[in-house]
């Protein structure tokens, strides 16, 4: 707990109007600090014990030993005794010659890139239409847009498992229109199916984020742009897109980050080794005796790679909330 400072606390609440400084003695202010800290404490303790500490434990396991007899991980708590063996093994598995995790890493990046781009390409026009052009039917469109948000991920994947069976409706429709590919075994390890599953699984969240952001754009700015002589397209590119940029970036993170940790979509829709992603690698290592430490090391490696985008997201969120205040 920091000692109470002598300066009056910056009044950032309210609308930034000048406020008459109120005279309080230090004891009262110290008391309120204790009060607010007490409010935050239970949640903070839960967060630290079950969010911060677990990552340290993961590090201790990754840099720890293996019990040779039971083949279980033995964490090493003291950083001075940490070994980099697991990290070296995992690094070699991902980047070394004949690496069995290399393919997973490449697929993770490629699948995520394609799926996230498709998500954005589909979600943006839809969110744009509903926020700008839906007029009186906005509530109807919103209900329909939000509906998939309430359908569980498993249900959405099951739906495609039904449709993509070899004698399912997709193949029957292809055969009906005499299109090629009506004999495809979609669920037998097809990358297209996995990417489609990822798009279908994560797009509802992206649409909601994009809609919320686009809906907040001040319509007067668009009218001003039109009044000043810009056409429809130039208004879109020079006013709407720049104003929507933070939303687009936030939305992309919201889709990309979970996709990078995904291991169930490809299991449900293909279950073939040819479509596994890095999440499957982590899961597989955790499940094999004697390799839990490597699993922890791989998870930490992924975490380190993701720290940059996550940090960016966290900082921009913090900045946005400060501007709102």
């Amino acid at each position, binding site marked *: 707990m920091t000692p109470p400072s002598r300066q009056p606390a910056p009044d950032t*609440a*309210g609308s930034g109007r000048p406020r008459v400084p109120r005279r309080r003695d230090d004891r009262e202010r110290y008391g*309120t600090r204790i*009060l607010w*800290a007490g*409010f*935050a404490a*239970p*949640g903070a303790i*839960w*967060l630290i*014990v079950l*969010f911060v500490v*677990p*990552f340290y434990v*993961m590090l201790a*396991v990754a840099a720890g030993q293996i019990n040779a007899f039971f083949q279980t*991980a033995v964490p090493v708590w003291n950083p001075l005794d940490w070994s980099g063996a697991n990290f070296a093994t995992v690094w070699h598995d991902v980047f070394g010659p004949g690496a069995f995790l290399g393919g997973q890493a490449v697929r993770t990046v490629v699948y995520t890139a394609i799926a996230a781009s498709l998500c954005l390409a589909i979600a943006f026009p*839809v969110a744009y*239409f509903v926020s700008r*052009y839906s*007029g*009186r039917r*906005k*509530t109807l*469109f919103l209900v*329909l847009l*939000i*509906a998939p948000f*309430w*359908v569980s991920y*498993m*249900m*959405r994947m*099951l*739906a495609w498992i039904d*449709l993509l069976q070899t004698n399912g*409706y997709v193949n029957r429709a292809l055969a009906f229109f005499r299109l090629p590919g009506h004999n495809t075994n979609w669920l037998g390890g097809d990358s297209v199916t996995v990417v489609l599953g990822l798009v*279908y699984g994560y797009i509802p969240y992206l649409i909601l*984020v994009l809609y919320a952001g686009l809906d907040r754009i001040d319509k007067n700015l668009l009218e001003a742009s*039109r009044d*000043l002589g*810009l056409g429809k397209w130039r208004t879109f590119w020079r006013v709407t897109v720049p104003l929507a940029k933070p939303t687009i970036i936030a939305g992309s993170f919201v889709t990309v980050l979970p996709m*990078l*940790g995904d291991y*169930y979509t490809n*299991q449900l829709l293909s*279950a073939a080794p040819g479509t596994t992603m890095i*999440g499957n690698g*982590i899961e597989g290592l*955790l499940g094999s005796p004697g390799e839990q430490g490597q*699993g922890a090391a791989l998870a930490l490696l992924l*975490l380190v790679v*993701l720290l940059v985008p*996550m940090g960016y*997201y966290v900082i921009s*969120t*913090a900045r946005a*909330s400060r501007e*709102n205040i």
Partner: protein
Amino acid sequence: MAVIAEKPRPAAPMHLPGAQRERAGWPKFLPRPNPWRRAWFLESFTWLYLIWSIVPVALAVLFSFNNGKSQSSWQGFSLQWYVGKGDTSVLHNPELHHAVIQTLVLAGLTTVITVPLGVAFAIGIDRWRSRTAAGLSFVMIFSFVVPELLLAVALFFVVTQLLRFIPLGTYAEVAGLVVWNLSWPAIVVRARLVTIGRVYEEAAADLGASRIRAMWRVLAPMLMPAIFASAVLVFAGVIDDFVIVEQLSSTANTQPMSVLIYSNVHSAGLPGPALNALATIMLGFSLIVAVLGLLVYRFMTRQERHGSTEALTSIAGM
């Protein structure tokens, strides 16, 4: 229905210089486009998206009522996968039956713990202006964006290596779900706190209320819709959750519906439509929560304008 609709205007303001310049390159013999025309292309695209997003799920619900084992051809209506005799209906298969209960237990417990913790956390962080508070707020947002698998793996290690008094199973699942969902009430309530500001509380203080009393009598009622919305989000989020509960469940007895569906999709154990039935029950729970949430939220904010749209978006965490 309170919706800001752009009223169609009869004609574009042609006398404006902007309007003229915009059409400078337009050939004279073509009719001028009406700037307020409907966006047909975008509208069709949106409808296509909606069909694509909703029809597969509707078909999956339909197949849960299939009178046969097929997940791809319709063999007539039956309720055999819900209440049928034998081991393959949700009612009579102990595993399926138990999964439903486990999901509800997890959702209930997690909501009851998470919401008070998160609300108090949001209020505390918002008022307690210090470096510690800023750091905690950072950690909270990190827990919001970290990929669920990484958190689940870390939780698995902490439960098996350090905090061994938390056994894998329901206790560990709830502990993990609380930390994963804590950011919902924290973010939603904090945003609401920022919009409310401190004016009302100060007015209450000027009228002689103590700090706690002002919070209880003035702030709490104003926060209620946000608190309620976050409770709905947490409850529905737990019903849907898969990764954390999969990593932290121990025996089949502690597997909720999502994990059971995942582990049975490729096994010959349970036929497809039974899983569809289970998923449909999950969907039913979510929809009940959503509709109830919407109605109660609408009732709570009945004096505000734009209530219905606002209620919809709040309940979906927007």
